[in-house]
């Protein structure tokens, strides 16, 4: 039986940069998009070591995990589009609430994604990060990003 956990503090995630969120998403999605032997290969080639080369410090910077996050979004794009972008219940709820109540929107997204994509429901951390990313980006821009195969945001 799966044990659910709390979604933590989405507010803190909301203050994270795009690259931090993408790296977090990659970390949460690693078991979904990489086989154990691939993770082993990543580890051996140094892809799991962070190499924060930003000017100044204090940020969780991890190019390898951010890439995994982008792979997750590309791999699960169809399911995510079906859940979010088909102008169904979740889409309407996210649009209805407006962009001002981010905490409410994140809660709506967590509930909506968990029920719309049961395969992801056990991964509560992943759903939380994904929901923050969705709310931060805005539902229409998020859907546009998923549908644009050449999006620079997913390269």
């Amino acid at each position: 039986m799966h044990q659910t956990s709390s979604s933590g503090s989405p507010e803190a995630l909301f203050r994270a940069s795009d690259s931090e969120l993408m790296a977090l998403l990659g970390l949460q999605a690693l078991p979904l998009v990489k086989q154990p032997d691939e993770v082993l290969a990543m580890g051996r080639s140094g892809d799991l070591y962070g190499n924060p080369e930003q000017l100044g410090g204090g940020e969780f910077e991890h190019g390898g995990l951010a890439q995994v996050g982008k792979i997750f979004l590309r791999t699960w794009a169809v399911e995510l589009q079906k859940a979010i972008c088909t102008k169904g219940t979740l889409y309407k709820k996210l649009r209805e609430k407006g962009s001002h109540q981010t905490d409410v929107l994140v809660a709506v997204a967590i509930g909506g994604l968990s029920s719309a994509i049961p395969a992801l429901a056990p991964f509560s951390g992943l759903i939380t990060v994904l929901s923050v990313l969705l709310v931060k980006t805005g539902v229409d821009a998020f859907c546009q990003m998923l549908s644009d195969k050449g999006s620079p945001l997913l390269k």
Partner: protein
Amino acid sequence: MSRVFGSSYESVMFDGKPLEIVSQDVPEFRSMERQFGSLRRVGVVAYFPVETKTGMATIRFESSSTGSGFTKSIAKSGSLSRQKLIDLELQAGQPLANSARGDLQAALLPADRTIDAGKTVFIIDNAYYGLLPEALEFHGGAVLSSSNLATALDTLKFLQEKQVKPEDFTAFVGYPESDEDLKAVFKDQPTATLDTWKERSGEIRKLSDEFKFKLYGSSELNKLPDKNAVLHEIENSKGIVWITAHSSGCRVRLSAGEAVEISASDIAGLHLTKKPFVIVRACNGNEAGFAKAFISAGARGVWVNQGKIQASEVNSQLKEFLAASQQKTLAQAIETVKQSSPLAAHATGLHVELILPEGEHAPNQ
């Protein structure tokens, strides 16, 4: 520059009704009234976010052909706090942060954005909120904290029409190139490894060879005798690329082995007689006050990044800018970079002609 809580407020009038704004914003408000009153030209708009007792309000100025016929109005007034504004602005610089940009625009700007179509729009960031026109989706706009609006307009025109060739730039780059540099720059908390920094530094050196601009990398800076020698080189540049690897300033190791830090206040004290165009890329470059420091030292314009940025992204933006500068004007070259880099599109902005009000000092001073 921080403000002290419990600031005093003064009334300014709009159509006979008073608006209580924080006293520190009043001199700039009066200055803008004078500027717009004497600017006989249509199509110039400035948005000036001010603090009121209940939250932020935005004052909108628009010029007229008669000068005295200019309009000033309260474009927006709400309960947004100063801190929330700073938070939103920081988030708004991220390419994916459409919701933060939407919130920021809803909090500061009028609902009808068509009133600014085709006009030159300036943002007045009197209190160092870190506001950039890009976050408010004013493309081609600039940040202004100026006591000379006409000069600022000329500067914007200059940037739109003039070219600065890559070879006219001098680059000051604070990437570490040795173990000693790494320690001098980051003390005991290096971010990336030395190999990574050397790789990034090598990329800049390659760009210097390709585009023929003068480079002061770590090796060249190490040969200079003291901090004044570095500052002297900056003062004599026609165009400047300023890249620091550390947030608070550019830490460099000089020939005597001494590590010095060149901060925004050092820059503000310079006399840039050649009125250079400056590209600043630093951790929190806009927020740390480098743009305003260069402008107050005499730079014609500064293109600055906001928030954190990776060295590889800096190099990529620089390469694209230099390549475009061979054929295009400064403004066009910037636009070229923005079109290929989502981070440049949302987290960089142009500052023009800051002349600090009398008695005020540059940030960090």
